[in-house]
């Protein structure tokens, strides 16, 4: 295979995010078997599928929390600096470049993962100040505006443990937004929430989709997925079994696996 140049006019520049033929295995378990994904700017792409089908792993490959064994990832025309695939484990070739890239891909986790020793506003301000070297006063103003936007301005000086799950997840979204990310990655953001708290988080996410954020979302909330996605990808046993617009996929699923998955989850 030829070396692919870092910035290339032959690169898939028309896609904002391009995931190309990703393979990933954990020991004996082949979790991803050649998955590709394209997202244009302002698009929302949702990943659905049964538990264990590899959705989270795919999402975590995009910001290299998991390092794919094969395949490439391009973000806004720049290829992630992974060592060439030579059969052995791949490494990050340029840590600094990866950190800069991660700073522009914000991730929202299932279990919120707010830093418990910091207050809510400190959580939101932490990475802009210490990773992006943003000025403190400006960052504080921005953080306060974002907390107000997600409806928890009054909790700015509380610690994460003092908030409900829904409030914590909204704080985590504010933390993500404060980085002014190019792409937002959501990893089952409502799965750890009590049912009555799911709505408040989905509402924030709907607003983000409506204002044209580029988002990749793993979710089991099918009505939400159907409503906000430009494209839905159904993963089955580590591969893409089916993809299309929500209308196509939800109304006329082509594969048996997808029909079964949808009929199970929708009833």
């Amino acid at each position: 295979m030829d070396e692919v140049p870092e910035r290339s006019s032959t690169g898939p520049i028309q896609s904002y995010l391009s995931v190309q033929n990703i393979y990933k295995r954990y020991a004996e378990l082949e979790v991803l078997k050649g998955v590709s994904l394209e997202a244009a700017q302002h698009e929302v792409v949702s990943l659905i599928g049964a538990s264990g089908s590899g959705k989270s792993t795919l999402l975590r490959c995009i910001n290299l929390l998991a390092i794919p064994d094969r395949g490439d990832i391009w973000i806004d025309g720049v290829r992630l600096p992974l060592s060439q695939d030579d059969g052995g484990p791949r490494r990050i070739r340029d840590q600094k470049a990866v950190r800069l890239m991660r700073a522009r891909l914000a991730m929202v986790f299932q279990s919120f993962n707010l830093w418990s020793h910091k207050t809510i506003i400190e959580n939101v301000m932490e990475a802009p100040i210490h990773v992006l070297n943003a000025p403190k006063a400006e960052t504080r103003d921005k953080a306060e505006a974002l907390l107000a936007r997600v409806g928890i301005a009054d909790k700015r000086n509380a610690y994460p443990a003092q908030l409900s799950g829904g409030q914590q997840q909204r704080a985590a979204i504010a933390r993500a937004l404060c980085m002014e990310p190019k792409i937002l990655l959501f990893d089952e953001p409502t799965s750890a929430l009590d049912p009555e708290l799911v709505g408040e988080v989905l509402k924030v996410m709907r607003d983000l989709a409506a204002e044209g954020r580029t988002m990749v979302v793993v979710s089991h909330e099918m009505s939400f997925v159907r409503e906000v996605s430009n494209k839905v990808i159904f993963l089955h046993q580590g591969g893409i079994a089916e993809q299309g617009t929500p209308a196509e996929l939800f109304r006329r699923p082509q594969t048996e696996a997808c029909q079964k998955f949808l009929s199970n989850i929708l009833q």
Partner: protein
Amino acid sequence: MTGALGLLSFGDGGWGDELLRGTLVTLQLAVCALALGLSLGLLLSAMKLSKHRLPRYIGDLYIAFIRATPEFLILLLFYFGIERAVQAVLVAVGLDVAFEMPRFLAAVIGLAAIFSAYAAEVFRGAYMAVPNGQIEAAIACGMSDWQTFNRVRLPQMWRFAIPGLGNLWMVLLKDTSLAAVIAVDDLLRQAKIGSESTRAPLTFYLAAGAIYLVLTGVSDLARNGLERRARRGMAGV
């Protein structure tokens, strides 16, 4: 009663000054051993958490050795061991001087060696007690390994480590009395000297006991305060 108070009074007739001096030595021993022991303990825990096998193995071996050896013996080994080793080095480089290991230093090193082995386990537990998701969140927003450790892991490690370290400090305070075996003039040794020259052992040993009680009591209060601070923001309030 006046007899006992007379013995413990300050000035020429009483042993109060000696006991006070012994108490200061005890505190100095404990604080120095704490500082050294915490640093060694951090280093040891880093070895135990290493990706490489060799440092892990050395760490395990050291901890197993300290655990299996009576504290009394460890102090003697460090005192005589370091003295012999330094002497051997001096001879090897052709210097013909007699080296005498400072007793206080030997006691501090011995006590720190003991403390560090147990502290390493406390640190390792604290390291692993920080939720992995919070570490991932730090990495995911672009923090370097050092920032992740320094800004997310370390500040939370203290919270998990303080109760365990508090217990170890209590043990250390009491273990300082072992320094008396290599003739460091700590509280216990002063009490012993006093009791032997006045034939009032109970008075002196009760007085020493009371002083240890005050030291551990104050430590307990300090630990509670630190724990409360470290738990800030954790469970609810």
